[in-house]
């Protein structure tokens, strides 16, 4: 277990490092940063001055290691746009995005897993078909569309919930539904298929041969095994949700990390873009690592290998 954990940690660390390099290089390839920072009216001399001031005239590897060194000390420099350090910007925005992501993920799991289990237990019946139909619907509606529909129906027409902002927990309901909706079809399908496979396995027949109650057979013997791949998928879906939060935070005007990224990209605020990309990558990698560890706890064949 210890070697498993350290192995996974090593993988997680190298992935984060790779992402940071890729993000850095892509940003520098996307155009001349000095020109972008200086703005369209700047003279050649001003651009050169800025290039020197920001250290952009040094070799890219030197710039990268410099950036990485500071990043490791939680120093991402200052925002070009806001009069603030990148770190304090990120720290003020992160809770909104993490809360939104966590609620969305929880919501989608709470809907998708039981639905998948039901569809498998009652496979080829009307319940199974309804669940599948729900899935197809889920995939057909884009996140931002659903977000807008939810706003129109529940906020504008019915006035049950606030339209935008992050003032109270009520503000999180609609965006979480919009964001979580996206993960439901994939999670449901995987739960259903995993459950179907497990239900036809020999050890389920053994459990039934013992005369156990159907609830024990399904919840204790089947679900425990069927859920293992779902844990890994949930981590991946959380990553997608972090990506999707850029759109959803814009639609619902929530001051989160996604909104910050969107603003920063629009304003050529490179230090912020770089920091946000790295932080999203680190969160994603950390989650994948946690999913691996959770799987090891669920599956003794990994844990005791």
């Amino acid at each position: 277990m210890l070697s498993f954990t350290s192995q996974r940690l090593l993988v997680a660390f190298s992935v984060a490092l790779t992402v940071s390099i890729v993000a850095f290089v892509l940003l520098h390839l996307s155009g001349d940063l000095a020109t972008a920072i200086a703005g369209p009216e700047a003279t050649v001399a001003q651009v050169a001055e800025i290039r020197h001031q920001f250290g952009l005239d040094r070799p890219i590897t030197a710039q990268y290691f410099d950036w990485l060194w500071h990043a490791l000390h939680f120093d991402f420099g200052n925002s070009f746009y806001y009069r603030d350090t990148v770190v304090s910007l990120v720290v003020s925005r992160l809770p909104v995005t993490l809360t939104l992501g966590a609620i969305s993920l929880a919501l989608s799991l709470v809907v998708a897993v039981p639905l998948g289990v039901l569809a498998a237990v009652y496979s080829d019946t009307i319940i199974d078909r309804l669940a599948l139909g729900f899935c197809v619907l889920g995939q057909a509606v884009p996140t931002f569309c659903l977000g807008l529909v939810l706003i129109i129906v529940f906020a504008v027409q019915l006035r049950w919930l606030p339209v935008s902002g992050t003032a109270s927990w009520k503000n999180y309901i609609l965006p979480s539904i919009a964001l979580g909706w996206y993960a439901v079809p994939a999670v449901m399908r995987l739960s259903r298929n995993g459950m179907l496979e497990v239900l036809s396995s020999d050890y389920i027949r053994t459990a039934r041969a013992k005369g156990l109650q159907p609830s024990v057979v399904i919840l204790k013997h089947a679900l425990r095994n069927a859920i293992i791949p779902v844990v890994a998928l949930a981590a991946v879906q959380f990553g997608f949700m972090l990506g999707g939060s850029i759109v959803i935070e814009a639609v619902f005007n929530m001051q989160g990390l996604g909104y910050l990224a969107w603003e920063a990209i629009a304003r050529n605020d490179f230090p912020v873009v770089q920091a946000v990309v790295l932080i999203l990558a680190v969160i994603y990698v950390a989650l994948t690592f946690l999913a691996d560890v959770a799987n090891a706890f669920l599956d003794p064949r990994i844990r005791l290998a």
Partner: protein
Amino acid sequence: MPLLEVENLVVDLPVSSGTLHAVNGISFNLERGETLAIVGESGSGKSMTSLAVMNLLPKRANRRANRLVFDGIDLANAPNARMRTLRGSRLAMIFQEPMTSLNPSYTIGNQLTEALRCHRSVPIASARDRAVQLLEKVGIPGAARRLGQYPHQLSGGLRQRVMIAMALMCGPDLIIADEPTTALDVTIQAQILHLLADLKREFGMAMILISHDLGVVARVADKVAVMYAGQVVESGAARSLFGTPRHPYTRGLLNCIPVPGRTTPGAPLGAIPGQLPSLIGPQRGCAFRERCAFAAPECAGDIAFITAEPGHDVRCVRLGALGMAA
């Protein structure tokens, strides 16, 4: 009253090209403490027969029977809840696939004790005591330590011993062992079969033993039923059936096993040429006729059982012509 009465049991499975007649009207009786062996080649319906008794058939399967009675309880019409109180408690089954029949996520101890705790609601400590006792009985070394282990930490032979111990937990009246050794190493097959026979005697259970090992069957079985294409083609006391096998299929099967002293070691065994007929669609006439050396036109008609000796029945119309009738 017999412990188990099966009369005209039918199991049908809908498949894409029609109806598959996996079990085609078989009948047998089993007394308390008796061992019935079911033999027959792969696909002849042995597993379907045992699953039909346990009511563990695949969801799509249809089961019908004139009589399917266990200790006076009508299994054919028993509601699921009633079946659950019997399964694992008075009716136990050991499966063909020891490698996959245990849940990989739970410890041996957990899986061993759960049937006992479900049916008898005994405290966990006494359930564990019984588990250790049975693991020792089935010959697992370090029984107490095994309770905390997971299936993947055990070899196939040990897992099948665990399955046997599991089946014994509630002290069943009938144990169905469906080819309990086919998936195992040849060297331990006979060991496991003899272990089963000993346990059966010690616990006073009745047993349905499905096995390819006719040598062991001849030693441990009281009665034998030979199955072919979903039917019993010959059944009788082991002594009578092995002494004078009458059905051409049974005789073919018996030629397939090595006999010490008569078969030269390493020599290829006889095999019955041909293969099982399709079980899909209406079945008529003797199912064996395409492979039978004695087939004649009348074999395509209806075939009834002929009693060759008291208790020894054979399903073949040409017994007289073959000089095999009583």
